[in-house]
């Protein structure tokens, strides 16, 4: 027990100089937030027609876009959650995201090809 305490303290002191250790439980939070903003920015940069089509699709089926749309559901309890896994939205959101439809992928590809030709 004493050895565990001493060893733990030494290891803690060693790793406390590490910048990554200081932000160990904060890092991933910053990554998860700006996903929605990114998509809005790209939609504005695209030509008006493409943006209009995309907006229409987003309105029709908001769950379709894998990257940008994060579906917030009511928090429910399940037996799986009674474990060590952190009950944090940043981990749970990943599981909620829905797969995109095949048609949408086609539309995006055509648009991107068009853009490349124009360039």
């Amino acid at each position: 027990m004493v050895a565990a305490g001493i060893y733990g303290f030494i290891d803690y002191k060693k790793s406390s100089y590490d910048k990554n250790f200081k932000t160990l439980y904060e890092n991933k939070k910053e990554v998860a937030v700006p996903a929605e903003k990114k998509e809005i920015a790209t939609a504005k940069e695209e030509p008006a027609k493409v943006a209009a089509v995309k907006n229409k699709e987003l309105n029709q089926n908001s769950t379709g876009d894998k990257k940008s749309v994060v579906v917030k559901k009511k928090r429910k309890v399940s037996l799986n959650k009674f474990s060590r896994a952190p009950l944090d939205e940043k981990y749970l959101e990943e599981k909620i995201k829905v797969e995109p439809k095949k048609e949408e992928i086609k539309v995006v590809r055509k648009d991107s090809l068009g853009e490349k030709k124009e360039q």
Partner: protein
Amino acid sequence: MLTLQQSVRFFFSLFFWIPVAFFSLLLVYNTLPYFSFNKSFSFIEERSLLFQNSFYNACFYIHIFAGMFCISTALIQFSRVILKKAKAIHRWSGRIYVFVVLFLGAPTGLYMSFFAKGSFWERALFMFMAMFWFFTTLKGLQMILKKNILAHKVWMIRSYAMAMTAVTFRVYHLIFYVMDWDHLKNYEISLWISVLGNMLLAEWFIYRKSKSYLKTFAV
């Protein structure tokens, strides 16, 4: 035939032990997948930097193995039926419990507490938990070696209360999660409530158990 007092006591013991056994076994069941040694669990992903250290890695797996063992063996330890009819089971599972706590669970818990989530106070609380768990279990062992059964019971109730913080923490954590609390706030409050709540509950049980004994001191 059971008297009214006995049947009320039986009802309340069921009311207490059924959820305790259910949540304990559920936690054990949900811990089993970790022994695939897969790193894709969100608990491990969150602490990926710590898991690069092989000693921390080993401590984690030893700690969860010890926790599983303690939680499941302790369920047998408080059974009056086993204690009366099969003392050997009580003795052997008790020996396993004491060994696992003193040599595996508490020391690894103390090491890991330095890197626990939360502020300085949550880390200090984890350290306290590990030390208190070790101390109460050691005292329980000492008392039974001295054949002092009442004191053995008292210290073992305290030890079990510490072991059960793993279970009660998750119960509070889930309740506050459903109440839409912020994750870190939820984590910290659940931790404090589970530790302090379990300690208070243990003391209340001890008081109830030793009430008649304490009366003998009354003038």
